[in-house]
């Protein structure tokens, strides 16, 4: 006896119709927005596509902006992203989205226009955290670094041979900028309020190695200290900085490298799970509303997304990684034009790279989820090694310094939650007498300690934590 009678309401028909005639709006015209648009077309979406970007530029790649662009090897506007296919979209560049009306399915733009959608992709990414004092931040010679304009301005400022450069914050971007300064033979001071560079991302053991690398390259690294104020001359150009320990430094270029702010303000009042760490979504990129109910028509990808990850206790993971944007955009695009069994999960194995001081640092997994570390291969003294991070006897992350060919080995172990310490692949094990042999605490900063905003954040849930925050609207 079968009740498989065809009903009058077919979801397959709905999907087919949506793919032919639906309206998709992508808010965010950078890496994730572009790759999502391309994936939509590639997967057969033929409806209308609108792409909104607040920058007046077509999508461009950001990682080169803190490396070869700053060095002056490549002009700042030479990082336009290659296009993988035609997207046939209505591009609205140079206009920001300022509001979302979920009831009427409308994105409100800064120029007063409204764009209607059937399905929406939020890919608005992040922006650089500005120097907290706006007057000081507006001095000439003070640069945050995120956009092509920032990079072009800073590259020119470095070319002009400043007396001294001050980098505030020793995260990945700050360290890369300091490295470029040394390549250009410029005196550079780096202040870090935590106890070492890269500590939030890679822990104290690796941070100590990174600090040595910096100092060996001639960087004046000052930890446990920050900048209290910046001072300019009569022409409005920065000329000195007062540190929190009272020291005054004469500096001509200042780069506050204080981490990012997720671009979620435009979603105020829309009732989505949007906050400091981005927009919460499920493992299929569908946005949650403020109550934890998943939406049907709103998707999130890239730096602005945070999603639960099975490898990390289903804690919400917020990643500022290049490949997370690319992979997440592709999954979001697939899921926007599919229902249920056609959908796929976005389960990124976090990966990133950073080139600094002649060393290629690469990492997979969420190192900060671990509490132990073991150097499994190579020699930290030679700046060529691999190390694995563990928690509760399982490997959760790995880092390599100039040892990238071994990273896939550790990636595969992490994906299987293999035992920690991992069996070394049998090559170039560290010498037994080395201070780095054996498992040791990874020394991630206590959350109560001031440290940077790492590029990978696990926004865990603590059942005892109930709080509400009043945020007055800026308008």
């Amino acid at each position, binding site marked *: 006896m079968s009740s498989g009678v065809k009903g009058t309401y077919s979801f397959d028909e709905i999907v087919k119709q949506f793919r032919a005639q639906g309206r998709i709006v992508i808010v965010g015209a950078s890496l994730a927005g572009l790759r999502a648009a391309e994936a939509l077309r590639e997967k057969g979406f033929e409806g209308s596509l609108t792409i909104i970007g607040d920058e007046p530029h077509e999508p461009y*790649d950001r990682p080169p902006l803190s490396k070869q662009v700053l060095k002056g*090897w490549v002009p700042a506007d030479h990082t336009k992203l290659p*296009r993988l296919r035609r997207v046939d979209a209505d591009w609205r560049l140079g206009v920001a989205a300022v509001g979302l009306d979920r009831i009427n399915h409308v994105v409100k733009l800064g120029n007063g226009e409204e764009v209607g959608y059937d399905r929406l992709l939020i890919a608005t990414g992040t922006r650089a955290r500005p120097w907290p004092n706006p007057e000081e931040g507006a001095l000439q010679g003070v640069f945050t670094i995120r956009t092509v304009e920032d990079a072009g301005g800073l590259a020119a400022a470095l070319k002009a041979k400043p007396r001294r450069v001050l980098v505030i914050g020793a995260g990945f971007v700050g360290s890369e900028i300091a490295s470029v300064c040394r390549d250009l033979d410029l005196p550079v001071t780096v202040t870090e309020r935590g106890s070492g560079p890269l500590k939030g991302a890679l822990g104290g053991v690796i941070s100590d190695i990174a600090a040595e690398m910096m100092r060996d390259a001639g960087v004046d690294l000052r930890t446990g200290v920050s900048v209290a104020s910046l001072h300019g001359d009569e022409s409005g150009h920065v000329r000195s900085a007062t540190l929190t320990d009272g020291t005054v430094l004469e500096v001509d270029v200042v780069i506050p490298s204080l981490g990012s702010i997720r671009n979620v303000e435009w979603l105020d009042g829309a009732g989505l799970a949007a906050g400091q760490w981005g927009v919460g979504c499920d493992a299929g990129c569908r946005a949650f509303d403020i109550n934890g109910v998943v939406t049907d028509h709103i998707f999130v990808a890239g730096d602005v997304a945070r999603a639960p990850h099975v490898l990390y206790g289903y804690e919400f993971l917020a990643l500022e990684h290049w490949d997370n944007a690319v992979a997440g955009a592709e999954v979001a695009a697939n899921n926007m034009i599919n229902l249920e069994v056609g959908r796929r999960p976005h389960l990124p194995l976090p990966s990133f790279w950073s*080139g600094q001081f002649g060393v290629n640092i690469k990492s997979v997994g969420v190192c900060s989820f671990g509490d132990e570390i073991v150097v499994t291969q190579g020699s930290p003294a030679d700046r060529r090694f691999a190390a694995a991070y563990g928690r509760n006897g399982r490997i959760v992350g790995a880092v390599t310094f100039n040892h990238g060919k071994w990273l896939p080995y550790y990636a595969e172990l992490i994906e299987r939650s293999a035992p920690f310490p991992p069996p070394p692949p049998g090559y170039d094990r560290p010498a037994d007498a080395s201070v780095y042999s054996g498992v040791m605490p990874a020394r991630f900063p206590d959350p109560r300690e001031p440290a940077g905003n790492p590029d990978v954040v696990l926004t865990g849930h603590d059942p005892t934590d109930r709080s509400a925050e009043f945020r007055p609207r800026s308008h």
Partner: protein
Amino acid sequence: MRLVIDLNKCQGYAQCVPLAPGVLKLVGEEALAYDPNPDESQRQQVLRAVASCPVQAIILELDPPADRDTK
């Protein structure tokens, strides 16, 4: 010409660098730096470099799609 290199995939085999030295540079032992928008005159070298990569990390825009230069 436009390219982007997936530096997660890149493991520093550096087969590409000698094939397109005007576009690709090795920094230190393993890190790769490159010009993402090189001049069209580099096309042949870049095509060879793309083919040479054992992990296929170089993504080159083969033909700019007709709608690329949008307003």
